Structures are given as C-alpha cells and as structure tokens.
C-alpha cells in the first residue's frame, strides 16, 4: 500500500508548494486580467460591424478602422480634444516646471503655502473643481467654451507637473551642478548644459501625464465646455443611445499610440544609459 501511494502525496504536495510559492504571481496575473478586460473588449468591438449601436457582436469588419471619422461628430470631438490637450500640456508643463525649479532649487519665504496651494487641487474632487470654476464663470457672465476648457485643464495639470518634475530635481545630485560651476560654467551655462538635460526626462514624463489627463478628462470638462464637444464628452453623451464603433477605434488607437511612445521612450533611455 505505502509503496503505491507514496508518490501521490508528494505530487500533490509539490503542486500545492508550487501554488503557494507562485500565489502572488497568480494573483498579479488575475489583477492584470481585471485591468485589461475592458481594454480588450473596447478593442474587439472596434471591429464590430454594428452600425450605430455597438452593443451586440454583429460580425467582423475593418471598415471602422478604415473610416474612423465615419460616425457623425466623432472626429470633430477628437480634434477638439487634441487641440485642448496640446495647448494645456504646453502651458501646464511650462508653468509647473517653473514652480518645480523654484521649489527644488531656491530657499524663499512662502514655501509652505506654495506647497499647500499645489497640493489642494489634487485633494479636491473633480466635481468641485469643475463646479467652482463654472460658478465663477457664471458670476462673471463668461460663456464656457474652448478656452474655458483649456483654462480648467491647465489648472488641474499644473500640480501633477510640479510633483513629477520636483521629484526629478530632488533626485539630482547637487554635486553635478557644483561640479559644473567648478568647471567655469556660470549659473546660466550650468542650467543649460547640466541641470536642464538631466531634468528633461522628468519634464517629458510630466508632459505626457498632463496630456493624458487632459485628453481623458470628462468631469471638469463637462462643467466648463458649454456647447463645445470633446472626445470623452462625445462618448458620455452618446452612451445613452449606443456608442458608434468609431469611438472604440479612436480609444484603441490612442491606447496603442501611447503604448508605443512609452516603450520607445523606455528603450531610448536604456540605450542612452548603455552607449
């Protein structure tokens, strides 16, 4: 009996050992599935031959990808979102980077209140940010539209830029700048040849973050957009009567473009380190 049964417990024992040792990896894999199910769903349904209401699988087609502007108003909304995203990113990155340098490189009075002012917008729910800005625009009799959206996006992106760039500046070895000064570079040259190139990856990351926050924002935009449409607003409004498959095309395309940018960025920075 024992000779026959002996391998059995050892096998199941090994299985359970494998399981318990890899439990955390299995768990992580499940978490990734949870994260990606909706993305996969969106991607798959971008090929749905569904016409206007993209709810049930009707068959495979490439037409949505070949003609992403096929549905009414999709592309108009996307163009608005891209324009708003670029303008807001440029402004927020410049303003935020300046603040980050002031905080990271200078001693000045009012540092504490500055930090608080940077932190507060991040600790305020979007609905409050959106509602308060709209309340002000209404009180001033300003009609919300394209530029009020830009204003609101710059406002909530600045804090994220400051935090990202400041972290990069803080991780910079101050001796590098001292070494530049020691090697006959004045303040301006030190900034141009040493500080800025070293902080650049942080600034680029901050800009990418600002753009994706702006492009994807719905709540604040919805309050301050008036009749101007953006891509998220378009999706929300059309959700009631079914979203055209072209929206899935644009969502999926954004996903892959961003993924490529990030991966290329990673590869480039790794190559730079090596060569």
């Amino acid at each position, binding site marked *: 009996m024992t000779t026959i049964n002996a391998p059995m417990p050892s096998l199941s024992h090994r299985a359970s050992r494998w399981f318990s040792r890899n439990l955390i990896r299995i768990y992580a894999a499940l978490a990734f599935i949870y994260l990606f199910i909706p993305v996969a769903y969106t991607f798959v349904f971008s090929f749905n031959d569904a016409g206007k209401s993209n709810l049930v699988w009707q068959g495979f087609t490439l037409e949505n990808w070949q003609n992403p502007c096929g549905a009414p108003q999709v592309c108009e909304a996307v163009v608005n979102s891209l324009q708003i995203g670029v303008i807001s990113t440029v402004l927020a990155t410049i303003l935020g980077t300046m603040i980050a340098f002031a905080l990271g490189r200078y001693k000045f009075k009012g540092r504490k209140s500055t930090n608080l002012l940077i932190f507060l917008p991040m600790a305020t729910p979007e609905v409050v940010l959106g509602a308060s800005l709209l309340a002000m625009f209404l009180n001033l009799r300003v009609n919300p539209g394209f530029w009020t959206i830009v204003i609101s996006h710059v406002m909530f992106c600045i804090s994220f830029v400051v935090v990202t760039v400041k972290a990069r500046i803080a991780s910079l070895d101050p001796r590098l700048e001292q070494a530049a*000064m020691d090697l*006959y570079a*004045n303040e301006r040259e030190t900034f141009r040849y040493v500080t800025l190139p*070293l902080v650049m990856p942080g600034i680029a990351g901050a800009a990418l973050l600002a753009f994706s926050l702006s492009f994807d924002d719905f709540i604040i935009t919805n309050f301050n957009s008036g009749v101007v449409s953006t891509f998220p607003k378009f999706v929300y409004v059309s959700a009631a009567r079914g979203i055209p498959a072209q929206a899935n095309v644009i969502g999926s395309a954004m996903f892959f473009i961003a993924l490529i940018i990030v991966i290329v960025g990673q590869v480039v920075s790794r190559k730079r*380190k090596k060569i």
Partner: protein
Amino acid sequence: MANNKVSQDTGDLKLDRVSKHYGDFCAVDDLSLIVPDGSFFALLGPSGCGKTTTLRMIAGLEEPSAGTISIGDTDITTQKSYRRNVNTVFQNYALFPHLTIFENIAFGLRRRGVKDVKSEVESALNLVEMAHLAERKPNQLSGGQQQRIAVARAIVNRPEVLLLDEPLGALDLKLRRQMQIELKRIQTEVGITFIHVTHDQEEAMTMADTIAVMNQGKIEQMGSATDLYEAPKTAFVANFLGQCNLIKGKITSRAGDKATVTAKGLTFEVPLSRVATSNDSVFLGVRPEKLRLDDTGVNSIKNCVVTDRSFVGTSTQYLVRAPWDLELVVFEQNDEGLHDLRVGDTVSLEWDPEHTFALDGAGDINAGADLDDEE
C-alpha cells in the same frame, strides 16, 4: 564662452582667520593656513571636523562667515566658483551622466573658450591612461576608472589649486593603494598644488608633503607625516594617527634636557624637546611598536599581564595590562626576537626615552580614538 574671466594668479594659497558658521554651529573656527605653491597638502580629520567645509570655501561653493582666502596676491574670498582658477575632484566624482567621457573632460575647456579642446582632452586622458574610454558614458566605467576621469576633468584646466574631496573613499582597499601612488605621480608630473581632504590617516600619510590634522573646526597640528606620528602635540593627534599608549602622569622635574614624569609610583624619562606643554599634569605617550617586552630600559613597567594577542602577519599585537587600571598595546615584529607569549603570561615592558612624548594632561585622554573609521 570666452566671457568667463578666470583669474590667472599663481602663488601660495592663503587662508587668513577664516570662520564658517551654520546657525549656532561653528564648522570652521578662525582658521589660518598657508599652502605653498606646488605642494601636496592634506587636511585630515574625522567627519564633522570642518575639513570639507574648508575645502568648499576654497572651491567657492561656500562663502566664509569671516576671514579671507587668497591665491598669491589676489583675494578670492567672494569670487564665484566659476571664476576661480581652482578645480575640484568631488567625492563620488560627480561626472556628468549625460555626457561622454570626452565631453566631461572638455566641459571646463569649452566654458573657458579654449580653442584646441581635442588635443588638451587627449593629453589629459593620456595622463590618467584612459584614452581608450573617451566615447563611453560615466556609468559604463568602474569606480577606479571614474576616479581617474574625475582627476583628468579637473587637471585638464591646469588650475592653480586642485582640491580632492575624499577622492578614494568609494574604492576598495587594493585599488585605493594603487590610486594613492597614481595621484602622487600625477601631482609630481603636473606640479599643481593639491589639497587633499580625507579622514583616512594612511591615505594622508602616504601622499601628502604636509598634513594638517583638523578637529572641531581648528587645526590641531600641522607637519610632515613623520612629525605628526613621532611627535604628536595633542592627545587627539596621537590617537587619531595610528594607535598610541597614553599614561596619565605628573612632571616632577625638568633638568637639563630631560624631564622626569611619575605615574603610579614609577618614574619615566622624556627629552624636554618632546614635552609639548608647560603644564605639569601630562599624558605620557609611546607608540605600540616602540614598546619592547623586556625590563632593562630606563622607562619600564614590570608585572604586566598579557590579556589578548592577535597575529596580523608582519607583527603580533598584544594587549597588556599594567599593574594598575591601564591597558597598553604592543606590536612585536615577527622576526627572530619573537617572544610568542600566551594570554595570562606575566611580562615587563620597556621603551627608550627618545620614543616618549609628553602631552598636556588637561584634555580627554581618549580624544581622537575610534574616530577614523567613520565616513
């Protein structure tokens, strides 16, 4: 950028009554110092003694709270660091990670608008024997290689004074030994004044012509390595440079060229020239390798007991307890006269008066001991 005017003075580096305060803390306290042109000078001391602050003031990275710094006849106290003809080899090197080795070395030349950057950089690379690495990035280099590049980057500018801030701290022992010889060679070759800041007494003693031992913002003693080791003037210097046996005693007579010291009923002799104080209460000092396990000499302690022994290759180190509350360290060379004692053996110790020194007995007998291992 040719607009950066760099001063071109030569001459001795002079610090005149320089102090540096951070709030209530005095990092450098009324320090005066002359470093002769072309010498290899070391500032030695434990961490927090003010040596790095002193270095940074010479580099122009800190401004003194009081006093003046000058090179030759030019006062550089408030001159910006990029206008001083002084360069620094930073601790951990501070090579620019985004630039190649070539561009790192060329950095200072380009800022000063030097025309023939390429040949200057190449000769600097040759000086440190790193010419084959010109196109690499700093993080592809080993610690020792980075060290050489940091030296080349500073030296290529032919500064009047080169500052080295713990330059060998990040290297392992073997490499450190090698670089000590290397740095000494480079200094002899280029003839620039080197000021070397370190907490490592061995490093200072092997390389520098003159060593200034710093403690709590002041210079305790300045001199050649031999002077400092054989004739320390304070308990701090005695303990900080190598190991030292100090015995508390009292001078009972000063006659002719010698002084007599009594401690615990025993009398010892010490040449008057080696008495560093006018005080009668003294610490009598003798280095461990000067002690002999014998009882024939003028200065001797009998009835001691061996409490510990350890074999360290070239010598055997004994810990020996005197008949009173005092432990002495004894190094015995591993050659013919070896005693090979065991723990518990009774021995006598003796040493020559000319190897004895007497220090002011007012301070802490342990000052400077156990400090040299810190960062």
